């Protein structure tokens, strides 16, 4: 007998593996409130992993008890199964282990690999950069207009000399404010699970979609935060001008990553120039409540007695 809990978790996992990410990626409201959308994406990712592993675990452990805690406790104590253990129980348990190991393992691996690359970049940068025009920004001598930051314990915010030459003072301040927002809100941590998820489940189209959406939303969120700190009458226009100048000026760039960023950059400029109304509070709270619910459902299914 398949416990209803396992079935419910499997249904949830299936929903979160395809229709939900597809809907969220296609929805129009995230552009109006990137922060709430980012919270929703985190919930989708976490609940997805939890329900996938949970469904297999609940089914696999069913012979040992009527709920996951009860069954797990029985296994830990070395009690024999109360119902006969069939082959499909072992298969489910094995799959649960492999999947959990894969998800966590890839997350750790991504983290290590990213940290190593960052350290290498930081070492190189510390040798070649000079103090920049802004207190916390460093200047890198290169004609292409580029700005970036390297997150971590010792974050580094870098402007190329090409960028400084291309932009006026207000636009430069907008760029620095945008990068500061990435660092202050630790956007790299929001992105990491989706980088890992994409690497762990390459067959899942939703993983790719989720990663692209989160990447875009993080940029929009940083734009929003930057706007709040910018002086001048038209900060939106200033930031849009900076984006267009930086996007168009780096000729002779390897073509691999180009197509990916085009649509995203365009969406950023459009929403700066023609801002949509902010999400009404009711919609905002509904979305946040949905995110919390999304996490509570698999947690409750896992911990409450099996139906």
């Amino acid at each position, binding site marked *: 007998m398949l416990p209803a809990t396992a079935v419910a978790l499997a249904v949830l996992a299936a929903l979160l593996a395809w229709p939900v990410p597809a809907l969220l990626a296609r929805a129009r409201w995230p552009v109006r409130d990137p922060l709430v959308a980012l919270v929703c994406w985190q919930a989708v990712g976490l609940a997805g992993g939890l329900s996938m592993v949970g469904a297999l675990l609940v089914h696999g452990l069913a012979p040992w008890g009527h709920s996951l805690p009860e069954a797990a406790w029985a296994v830990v104590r070395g009690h024999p199964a109360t119902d006969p253990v069939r082959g499909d129980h072992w298969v489910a348990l094995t799959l649960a282990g492999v999947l959990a190991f894969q998800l966590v393992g890839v997350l750790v691996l991504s983290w290590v690999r990213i940290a190593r690359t960052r350290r290498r970049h930081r070492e190189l940068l510390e040798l070649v950069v000079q103090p920049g025009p802004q207190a916390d920004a460093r200047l890198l001598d290169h004609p292409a207009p580029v700005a970036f930051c390297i997150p971590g314990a010792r974050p580094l915010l870098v402007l190329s000399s090409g960028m400084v030459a291309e932009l006026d003072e207000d636009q430069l301040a907008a760029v620095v404010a945008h990068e500061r927002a990435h660092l202050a809100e630790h956007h790299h941590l929001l992105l990491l699970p989706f980088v890992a998820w994409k690497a762990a489940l390459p067959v899942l189209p939703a993983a790719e979609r989720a990663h692209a959406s989160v990447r875009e939303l993080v940029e929009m969120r940083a734009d929003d935060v930057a706007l709040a700190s910018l002086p001048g009458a038209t900060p939106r226009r200033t930031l849009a001008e900076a984006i267009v100048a930086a996007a168009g000026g780096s000729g002779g760039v390897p073509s691999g990553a180009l197509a990916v*960023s085009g649509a995203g*950059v365009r969406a950023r400029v459009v929403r700066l120039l023609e801002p949509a109304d902010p999400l009404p509070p009711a919609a905002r709270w509904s979305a946040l409540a949905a995110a919390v619910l999304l996490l509570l459902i698999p947690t409750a299914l896992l911990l409450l007695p099996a139906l």
Partner: protein
Amino acid sequence: MASLGELERAVMERLWAAEGPVAATELRDQLADRGVALTTVHTVLTRLEQKGFVRHDDARPRRFSARASREDHAAELMHEVLGQAADRQAVLARFVGSVNDDEARMLRELLAGGPTG
């Protein structure tokens, strides 16, 4: 006393400025205004060697030189930054990704309020 990172920079500056390989004692003399001991110079040089920025020859005493010029390092870094694949955004957050010429033209039109087709 200056931090190791600062000293690494100072040593690299001297190596880049030097005509040829430089001995550790010469570096210490050049950094005399910082009051750096010879052991510290060696520590810094070892760290720089581990990072792959410096190499030494087999002469006695050893003489040290930079593996690549400052411009080469900057170019290597920019190559990675500009050419980064989509998932490299997790390594560093770049202000704007590069777009192709058509996209760039469309963006400028968007800014000018022109046709957005």
